[in-house]
């Protein structure tokens, strides 16, 4: 399948850029830069024992930012897997909450109240049928909005992926399946995950368009997501977008990619850096310069400092809260367990 590109590796236009105003383009680049910075910070926090396992996003900034910016945050929903820091932030999640989540603090599970954001999903692909139900439910109620569901190439081998795509197709649910194909399921390269060269090729089997997009081209991601959104809103149902992207770092901080990633591939992928490409074009078209970059750097500093400060000052959770939120209407036995728990803690 053809790869849809607007900006090529060198930052040259090879297609029609989508209509995005300059301020928004700047915001997009800033968010991409923030992503890279969050990775650095989180990895260093993890090394100092302040965060649990962290999944870096570096290399996938364009795929996330280009797609999520095509949404209307009021009415469109984001249903992430676990590497969608940027889409989640853009959709209202405070960075400090994200960090708390990664440190294993229950407060990290907070979601924006009345927001249009789903929780992180650990089980690969399990959120996809949920995204379909959500989109279908919006449609049933005549509410506007589409659902943008992210998942990886790895998740595309799960049965849930198939059942979700198929149900979406038959119910014409306004959902956008955005597969972040970074070529790896932890240590397993795509060619050991599937006999198909492309995830997008699966669209046809569900009666939906499947498009293969350069995921490191933020403009192509924006354009194809916008198009998918139009289809969804117009009642034409789901779209499958395969964002062909790169995982520049490890799978997570618990992973050692030198065990399995060929050294030359690392070099090749660096050349596809989505930030460099976008910045080159932004600079060449007069939308960005060293000043803007310095300003963006300061903005990133602020975001991160503020988030880390909040994170640092969040008290450890009260142990008894482990009983919270399991049921809306708590069974007697659980209430008693809670009481016994309190008594046990006090007995120490």
């Amino acid at each position: 399948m053809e790869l849809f590109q607007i900006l090529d590796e060198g930052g040259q236009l090879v297609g029609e850029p989508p209509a995005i105003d300059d301020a928004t383009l700047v915001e997009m680049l800033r968010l991409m830069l923030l992503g890279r910075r969050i990775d650095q910070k989180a990895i260093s926090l993890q090394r100092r024992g302040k965060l649990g396992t962290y999944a870096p996003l570096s290399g996938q900034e364009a795929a996330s930012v280009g797609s999520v910016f095509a949404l209307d945050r009021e009415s469109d929903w984001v249903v992430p897997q676990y590497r969608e820091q940027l889409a989640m932030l853009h959709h209202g999640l405070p960075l400090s909450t994200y960090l708390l989540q990664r440190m294993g603090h229950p407060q990290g599970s907070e979601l924006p109240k009345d927001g249009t954001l789903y929780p992180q999903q650990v089980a690969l692909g399990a959120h996809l049928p949920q995204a379909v139900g959500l989109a279908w439910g919006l449609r049933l109620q005549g509410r506007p909005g589409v659902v943008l569901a992210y998942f990886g190439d790895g998740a595309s081998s799960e049965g849930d992926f198939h059942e979700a795509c198929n149900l979406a197709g038959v119910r014409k649910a306004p959902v956008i399946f955005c597969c972040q194909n970074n070529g790896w399921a932890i240590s397993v390269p795509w060619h050991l995950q599937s006999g198909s060269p492309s995830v997008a090729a699966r669209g046809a089997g569900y009666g939906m368009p499947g498009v293969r997009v350069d995921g490191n081209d933020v403009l192509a991601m924006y354009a194809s997501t916008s198009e998918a959104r139009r289809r969804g809103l117009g009642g034409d149902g789901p779209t499958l977008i395969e964002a062909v992207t790169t995982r520049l770092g490890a799978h997570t901080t618990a992973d050692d990619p030198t065990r399995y990633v060929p050294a030359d591939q690392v070099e090749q992928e660096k050349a596809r850096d989505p930030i460099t490409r976008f910045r080159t074009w932004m600079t060449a078209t007069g939308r960005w310069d060293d000043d803007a970059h310095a300003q963006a750097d300061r903005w990133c500093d602020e975001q991160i400092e503020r988030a880390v400060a909040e994170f640092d000052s969040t008290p450890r959770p009260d142990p008894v809260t482990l009983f919270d939120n399991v049921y809306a209407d708590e069974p007697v036995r659980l209430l008693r367990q809670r009481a016994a728990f309190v008594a046990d803690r006090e007995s120490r």
Partner: protein
Amino acid sequence: MAVLSMVEAIRSTLEAEMARDERVIVLGEDVGKSGGVFRATDKLQERFGSERVVDTPVSEAAIIGASIGLATAGLVPVPELQFLGFAHQAWHQIGFQLARFRYRTNARFTTPVTIRAPYGGGVRAPELHSDAFESMLVHSPGLKVVAPGSAADAKGLLATAIRDPDPVFYLEPLKGYRLVRDEVPDGEYLVEFGKVRVARAGDDVTVVAWSGMVGIAEEAAAAAEAEGISVEVLDLRTLMPLDVDGLAESVARTGRAVVVQEAPLTAGFAAEVVATIAEEAFVHLEAPISRVSGYDTPIPMPQLEDYYIPDAHRVLAAIRAAVNF
């Protein structure tokens, strides 16, 4: 009051709940046009249309997963799994997704989904259609598990389930669909979760049962009566929440307990009932608590299933053993 079969009590309750609350939608395999393979959703699509009574593809995981999504969109889904044996295909969506959605989101989302599924043997169905297993459902924090043993409860518990903010797994005894018939209150009727029903009062021994085994327990109790043994039959009604106090109170009085389940013995829900009684009523026990249960095999081929499913003879033997201990 009208005498209804269980399946008719379920069908009419679904209809009433859909009429009451337009957010309620039914989805599943064959629930629409054909009205369900047991007619539990008969005529609902005619009345409420094919957007509220939805025939889905054969995709159990997607049926439950989509129900979660529908619930977060503000609807009240009542998915049907055609047989409990096919809940396994959706197990990840049930045990770790639906049950935990509220927990995972710090209560940003609740998912008032009621999954309905028939289960249990006795109707000569093919493999995987008759298996009884409840314990894995109960062992899923966040989920409630309901298993009516009478038509009246089928109504009252289903209405409560649909209105409950938490996800509920609602088990329907396949054999009882048409066989169990009793007086069902007219109009609005809700049965509270977590309270046993004393199906029969008695003093010498407590027999605990639920769903399809309630009738068997009652049959055995009647036979025991003839031998001068007074048996209390408790219908658990809801397995989660479990009426710990109701169990303890009865056994404290009788001093003896027999727990009946259709599932394989080992690690079935009866083990939980025994463990609970053993913890809560230890000082009152005058005999070992015993289990009358399916065996540690799959429910066998139809020609042998009557030998597998506990019957009144086996329950009576356990009652006698408890009394004569």
